[in-house]
């Protein structure tokens, strides 16, 4: 067996050995007992997560990366009016049939929010949870990451369903956000919607095919730019990714203004989504921004700390 020899003239080995020596020496120096040479300890500034990446748990139709502090109880009142297309006829949709959601959330332990809501569209009850996995810090984590999961139950009359499970839809979302400057925050949120029942047709005798897949991937981009300490411009875009055979949902563009106070957040905006329930928005949206099918909406949240 040929012994391994090191040629110290080799251009790679020599600098590597020098680096190794320096590294070891450095370790020895750092490992020295300093008791014989005591110095005044220098106060190390505590590394804390970035605060207030967004002003609310909502940014128009999407959840933000934010989970309120432990012990917070929150109530949401959300409203989506009709599309503005009829102009004065229904006063930009204000007097058209609208969609309303009441939501209630609580933060029982640090970083975990749980909640439930009822929405007028399809009399939808939702149960949801949100967990802050990573929080952005100045030196350790460049982004904050939060998971959001939601189950919705369509509670219309049983004539609309064959099985009870047909009422259920599921939504999973990973929210990745960064407070880029004290004024500007952005987030990207890939999501997966699962629908238990889809419309279908027989393309051959005995062979059934759904018009849409049961799974639907989408991605949302959102941002807030603070124009005053408690006022910001909010924008949000939702892009469907999954291509279905037909009935592909339309993307959503929304933009508006956010005002926050000690306990409230007010968001006023225009957008294409009308269902409020995230899985229904992502899967069934038919309002197309290219056709000017925008609607006006608002979110109001109120927090109490216990």
């Amino acid at each position, binding site marked *: 067996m040929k012994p391994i020899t090191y040629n110290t003239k080799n251009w790679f080995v020599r600098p590597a050995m020098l680096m190794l020596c320096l590294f070891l020496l450095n370790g020895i120096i750092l490992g020295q007992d300093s008791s014989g040479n005591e110095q005044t300890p220098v106060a190390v500034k505590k590394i804390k997560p970035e605060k207030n990446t967004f002003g609310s748990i909502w940014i128009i139709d999407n959840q933000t990366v934010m989970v309120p*502090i432990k*012990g917070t109880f929150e109530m949401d009142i959300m409203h989506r009016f009709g599309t503005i297309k009829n102009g004065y006829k229904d006063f930009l949709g204000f007097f058209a049939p609208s969609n309303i959601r009441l939501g209630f959330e609580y933060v029982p332990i640090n970083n975990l929010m749980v909640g439930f809501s009822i929405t007028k569209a399809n009399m939808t009850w939702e149960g949801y949870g949100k967990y802050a996995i990573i929080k952005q810090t100045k030196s350790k984590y460049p982004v904050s990451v939060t998971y959001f999961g939601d189950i919705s139950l369509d509670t219309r009359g049983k004539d609309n369903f064959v099985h009870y499970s047909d009422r259920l839809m599921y939504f999973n979302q990973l929210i990745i956000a960064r407070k880029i400057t*004290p004024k500007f925050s952005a987030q990207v949120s890939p999501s997966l919607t699962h629908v238990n029942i889809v419309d279908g047709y027989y393309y051959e005798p005995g062979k059934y095919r759904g018009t849409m897949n049961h799974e639907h991937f989408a991605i949302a981009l959102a941002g807030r730019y603070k124009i005053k*300490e408690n006022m910001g411009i909010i924008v949000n875009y939702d892009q469907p990714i999954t291509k279905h055979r037909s009935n592909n949902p339309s993307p959503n563009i929304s933009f508006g203004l956010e005002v926050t106070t*000690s306990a409230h957040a007010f968001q006023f905006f225009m957008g294409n989504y009308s269902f409020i329930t995230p899985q229904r928005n992502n899967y069934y949206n038919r309002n197309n921004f290219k056709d000017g099918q925008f609607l006006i909406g608002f979110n109001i949240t109120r927090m109490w700390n216990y």
Partner: protein
Amino acid sequence: MKLRYYASALVVLIVIFATGFTFRMQEKKPWPVPDKYKSMKNQVASDAESIAAGKALWSTHCKSCHGVKGQGDGPKAAQLKTEPGDFSKASEQVQSDGSLFYKTSEGRDDMPSFKKKIPDQDDIWSIVNYVRTLKK
């Protein structure tokens, strides 16, 4: 003559009630601070970062009553039963950092307690640092 007498008496009564009420409104209820807090040192250095954080929190939680410049003239101030003070004046600034920290944390009457809403004590110290910049 009698009517004039009654009218004068009525005016005097109105003045007494009105001024009495005003004096009552302006009367400042003492707010004792435990010695532990009076002498407590500010835990956060008053640097630009802390003052910016304090300003953001002030705008969110304090401005509606205490006003933009801390003069006690926020939009909600008129509804208060207790006088919110004027932080631009030396009479309020004479308080120690620890006293301001205690009052912000604990609250009293119209002044809410912020120890649950702002759980990080360093944030309350940052508000104290910002309050110091309101002095004229």
